[in-house]
């Protein structure tokens, strides 16, 4: 049962080694990435067999000690983090030169530790510490770009992240004051509707929506994700933002499920809808590829927040399991697609020196593999078949029709068309009168990880999504 602890300890160990031997940071980083992916795989197979896992750390049972817990939801996100992390590591090994690599690898592995720690945490205060570790390492990585815009954007991201964390912490303190325990399951058992629970929920979910960049609080994301180096932006957009969304989902399902009023759910849904429209609109008008990708993240996060109102309206049962599986499917697909998009943009930027969409023509023509990755990632972002988000959007629409909430359907359709507009605005640049490139792949070490991620998002998750339902424990307890 130690695989849970290993999934956190291994990346941490690799981070420490990379700090001590900066000269061999890249090698240690790659080995660490492989080891972490293997540990994550172990956890996933165990969850696939036994359903839920939990170990008390330090030999002390809850409530005194801290428990690591893994169920279907955390296993799915752990798997995504492992795969995306592996691809980002391979890409970064070729992307960064000596000096930057020295700084990148320890921080990247710390980020990975925080992610694994967060997905497996079962203790509310431990979640606070992992959130802080995640925030700080993400900010430090974001500032790696070195230019003024990157540092300013990272600073603003840090401030927003701190505000979110402290608000989350106050919520935890209120819960501890009232129920005397920090473990998620115990607090959930003791929680009854009342001012304490409502205040704690508002503080915690409010803080986390700040870190998940939900619509009005998204201003910090585009500059931060657009100015960071490509592998870092990929990690930020695909993994870090998702951790906050995961946490909101975890608190929603496990802790505050009985308390959530339809009003609160509608509010989140409304903000999500606004995010979809606003994010897509800004992405349509972005001049730079990375800004386009960052605004696309804001829009795609909006989609994820369309689920709460539908959750409220569907009674527990197969309908709700479909919705949960659709939500997880969209989180995973966006994770793979967005990281592939940012990695591909990184190749373009490195090769042509800029990522301005207007002058993209030449490079897009000369890099067929990267343009193909952009195409596949675009398909997954729009939600066209056979991508995972197509199935996700299908189930979301199905839920909306079944529960009679027509408003969301309009939002999803406009969002899909606007996403198609800004994706094909980029792809149409790939067809011009430049000379034909000799081969399909120009630089394997950076283009192949991106292509693999895009393929998983656009084809793999679409066709092979069926195991998600039993993994999420559809049917019995519906968590």
């Amino acid at each position, binding site marked *: 049962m130690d695989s849970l602890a290993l999934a956190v300890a291994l990346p941490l160990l690799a981070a420490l080694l990379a700090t001590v031997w900066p000269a061999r940071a890249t090698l240690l980083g790659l080995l660490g990435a492989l080891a972490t992916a293997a540990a994550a795989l172990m956890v996933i197979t165990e969850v696939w067999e036994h359903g839920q896992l939990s170990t008390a750390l330090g030999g002390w049972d809850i409530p005194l000690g801290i428990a690591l817990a893994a169920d279907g939801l955390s296993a799915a996100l752990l798997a995504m983090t492992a795969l995306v992390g592996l691809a980002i590591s391979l890409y970064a090994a070729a992307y960064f030169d000596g000096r930057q690599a020295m700084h990148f690898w320890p921080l990247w592995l710390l980020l990975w530790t925080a992610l694994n720690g967060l997905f497996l945490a079962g203790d509310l*205060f431990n979640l606070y510490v992992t959130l802080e570790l995640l925030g700080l390492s993400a*900010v430090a990585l974001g500032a790696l770009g070195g230019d*003024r815009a990157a*540092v300013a954007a990272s*600073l603003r991201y840090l401030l927003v992240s*701190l*505000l979110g964390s402290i608000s989350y912490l106050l919520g935890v303190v209120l819960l501890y004051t009232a129920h005397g325990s920090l473990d998620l399951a115990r607090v959930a058992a003791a929680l009854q509707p009342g001012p304490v629970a409502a205040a704690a929920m508002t503080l915690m979910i409010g803080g986390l929506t700040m870190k998940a960049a939900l619509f009005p609080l998204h201003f910090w994301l585009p500059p931060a994700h657009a100015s960071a180096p490509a592998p870092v932006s990929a990690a930020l957009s695909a993994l870090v933002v998702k951790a906050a969304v995961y946490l909101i989902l975890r608190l929603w399902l496990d802790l505050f499920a009985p308390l959530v009023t339809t009003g609160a759910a509608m509010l989140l849904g409304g903000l999500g809808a606004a995010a979809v429209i606003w994010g897509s609109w800004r992405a349509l008008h972005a001049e730079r590829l990375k800004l386009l990708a960052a605004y696309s993240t804001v829009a795609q996060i909006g989609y994820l927040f369309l689920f709460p109102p539908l959750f409220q309206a569907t009674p527990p049962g197969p309908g709700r399991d479909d919705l949960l599986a659709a939500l997880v499917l969209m989180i995973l697909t966006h994770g793979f697609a967005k990281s592939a998009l940012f990695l591909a943009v990184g190749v373009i930027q490195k090769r042509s020196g800029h990522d301005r969409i207007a002058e993209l023509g030449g490079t897009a023509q000369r890099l067929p593999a990267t343009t193909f990755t952009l195409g596949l990632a675009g398909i997954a972002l729009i939600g066209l078949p056979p991508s995972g988000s197509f199935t996700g959007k299908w189930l979301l629409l199905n839920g909306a029709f079944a529960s009679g909430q027509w408003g969301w359907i309009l939002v999803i359709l406009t969002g899909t068309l606007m996403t198609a507009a800004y994706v094909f605005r980029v792809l149409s640049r790939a067809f011009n009168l430049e000379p034909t490139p000799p081969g399909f792949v120009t630089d394997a070490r950076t283009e192949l990880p991106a292509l693999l991620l895009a393929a998983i998002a656009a084809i793999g998750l679409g066709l092979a999504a069926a195991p998600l339902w039993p993994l999420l424990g559809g049917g019995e307890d519906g968590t």
Partner: protein
Amino acid sequence: MTELLFGGAGILLFAMGLWSFLVHEPLLRKLIAFNVMGSGVFHILVAISERGALRPDPVPHALVLTGIVVAVSATALALALDRRLDDEDPDG
């Protein structure tokens, strides 16, 4: 009774800090505001752990210690980022 008094003070500190964080522009003031908010939350933890004659509840104390270290490291990083911004173009 003392729990409510000191806990209430903690919440007031949090609120004042939040107000200052949202209102004031310069980074230094935002960081002070953040630290005051943090201290407020930690103060609530210390307040609820006080049990009069008995030894206080050690778990919140450990949380506060961890919190202080986390707050300081975040402040250090924020100031380092700001310093890097100043060095970029010295006349600000």
